[in-house]
C-alpha cells in the first residue's frame, strides 16, 4: 500500500468533520466522491499535514506520517494540487515548474527529465513557458498546477477538485491526462463531478457526513443505485 489511512478523526475547533475514516491506495487511481461539506478537502488536508488529525493513523510508503509538517510530507513523495489557490500567480510557468522540484530531494538531478515529461503531457505549457501564470486561463492554470506537482517526482499525486470552475471540455482533457498518468504514479482525486471521475479511475470511495458510506471498483460504483440516485442524477 502506498497510502493507508486508519480510523482517521479530524475537525476544526470543536467541530468534528471526519469520523473514523479508513482508506487505502495502492498502485492505482482512486476517487473520493461526495457532496459539499462531506469532508473530502479535510481528509486531504489531514493527509498533507495542513490540519492536524485528532486521532487515527496515516501511513505513507510504510512510514507513519500522522501529523507531520506539510513540507516534510511533500518531500516524502506526496504532491498536492490544492483546491483553487493552487499556483504562484506572480511567477512564470517556468518558475512555477522549477519550484515544484527545487525543494524536493527525490526530484533533485531529474529536473530535466521531469520537465520533459510535464511538457509532453501538457504541450500548451511549452508555448506559454515564459508567461506569468496569473494571466492564463483557468484550465491552463490547472494544468500548470498539475505539472508543478508532477515536477516533485511524487509517488502519490493528490488532486482536490481538479474540475472546479473549468468548462466541461477542459474537464475531460484533465481527466484524460490523469488516466495517462496513473501508470507511473498513484492518484487520489476528490470530485463532485462523479461521472467524469468514475470514468477515469480504478476505485472509488463515497464520503458522506464525514464517514465512508461506500467503496468499490469505479465501474461498480457507477452502477450502484445509491450513487446513481445521489450523484449521477439517474
Amino acid at each position, binding site marked *: 500500500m502506498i497510502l493507508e489511512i486508519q480510523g482517521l478523526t479530524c475537525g476544526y475547533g470543536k467541530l468534528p468533520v471526519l469520523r473514523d475514516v479508513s482508506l487505502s491506495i495502492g498502485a492505482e487511481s482512486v476517487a473520493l466522491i461526495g457532496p459539499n461539506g462531506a469532508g473530502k478537502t479535510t481528509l486531504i488536508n489531514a493527509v*498533507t*499535514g*495542513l490540519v492536524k488529525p485528532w486521532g487515527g493513523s496515516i501511513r505513507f510508503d510504510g512510514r507513519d506520517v500522522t501529523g507531520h*509538517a*506539510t*513540507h516534510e510530507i*511533500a*518531500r516524502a513523495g506526496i*504532491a*498536492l494540487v*490544492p483546491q483553487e*489557490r*493552487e*499556483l*504562484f*500567480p*506572480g*511567477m512564470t510557468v517556468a*518558475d512555477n515548474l*522549477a*519550484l*515544484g522540484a*527545487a*525543494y*524536493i530531494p527525490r526530484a533533485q538531478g531529474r529536473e530535466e527529465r521531469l520537465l520533459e515529461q510535464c511538457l509532453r503531457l501538457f504541450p500548451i505549457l511549452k508555448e506559454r513557458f515564459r508567461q506569468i501564470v496569473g494571466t492564463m486561463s483557468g484550465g491552463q492554470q490547472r494544468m500548470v498546477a498539475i505539472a*508543478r*506537482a508532477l515536477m*516533485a517526482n511524487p509517488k502519490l499525486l493528490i488532486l482536490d477538485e481538479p474540475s472546479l470552475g473549468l468548462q466541461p471540455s477542459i474537464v475531460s482533457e484533465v481527466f484524460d491526462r490523469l488516466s495517462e498518468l496513473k501508470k507511473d504514479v498513484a492518484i487520489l482525486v476528490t470530485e463532485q463531478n462523479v461521472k467524469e471521475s468514475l470514468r477515469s479511475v480504478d476505485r472509488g470511495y463515497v464520503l458522506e457526513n464525514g464517514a465512508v458510506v461506500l467503496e468499490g471498483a469505479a465501474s461498480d460504483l457507477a452502477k450502484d443505485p445509491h450513487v446513481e440516485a445521489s450523484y449521477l442524477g439517474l
Partner: protein
Amino acid sequence: MKRTATYAAAAIAAVVLAVLPAFLGAYPLNVARSVMTYMALAVSWDMLLRSGQISFGIAGLFGLGSYASALLVLRAGMDPVLSLVFATLLTGAIAYALGFAVLRLRAMYFSITTLALAEIFRIVLHNLHDFSGGPEGVVLPGVIFGGAAPALYWLCLAGLAITLGTSWYFERSKLHLALTAIRNDETSARASGVDIFKYLLVAFTVTSTLQGMMGAIQVQSYGFTTPETAFDANFTLLPLAMALLGGIHSTLGPIAGAVLLGIASEWLKLKIPYGHLVVYGIIIVLVILLMPRGLVGLARNRRAGRRA
C-alpha cells in the same frame, strides 16, 4: 550577453564609487554616505518584502546595531573596527531569537509588531541610564579612522557593497524561488516542500543583520548617538519610500529610489528645512497612486510595450 553587460555596468559603477573621494570634498562625501546608508536599508527592507513580510522595524535594528557598537567600545573597551563586526553579529543573534516569535505573525500583525519592537528597543535604551547613557545618549572617545572623510566614505561603501551582494545572492539563488513562493501562496509553497518558517527566519535574520551593520557603521562615523537619533523613524520611513519609488521586489529598484530621493532630500532640507518630510509624503502618495510598481516597473512596462 545581457548578463555580461550588467556585470560590466556594475563593475564600472563600483570603480567610480570607489575613487569618488579623490574628487569630492567633505560635504558631498557626507551626502553620499547618507544616500548609501539609506540605500542599504532600502535594499535590505526589500529583501524581506520579497517573502511578502512588510517590516516597519528597520529603525529598531539600525538603532540596535548603533548602540551595540557604541557600547562595545565604551563599556567593553573594544576596538572600533572590531565592534562593527560584533555589533553586526549581535543584532543578527537578537533578530534570530525574536524571529521565532514575530514570524508566527503575518501581514499587518507582523508589521505592527516590528514597529513595536523598534519602540521597545528605543525605550529600553532611553531608560537604562547607567548602561546606555539614557536620553543624553553616548559619546565615543573618537570617530573611527580619526574621522578622515574618505575612510568613512569607504567604510559606508563597504557596508553597502555587502548589502547589495547579499541581495544579489538572494535574487540569484534557490532562496529566490522559496521567498517568491511564500509571498504568492503559503499553502502551495508548503505543498511544494518549502519549509516556510526556515526561509522566513533566514530572510529576517539576514536583513536585520544588514540593518544593524549599517547602524554600527553610522555610529562609529559620527562618534555619538542618542535614542532619538539611532531609532529615528526616518530610518524606517525613508528606505520604505525609496524602495516604493524605485520599484519593489528587486535590487535595482531600491537603488534607483535611494539615489533620487536621497539627493532630493538633501536639496529639500536646504530649501524647506521644516517641511521637507511633507514633500516626501506627497511623493509616496503619488507613487502608490500612479506607478505602484515603481520606476523599475514603469521602465519594464515601457520596454514590454515597445516589444509588443
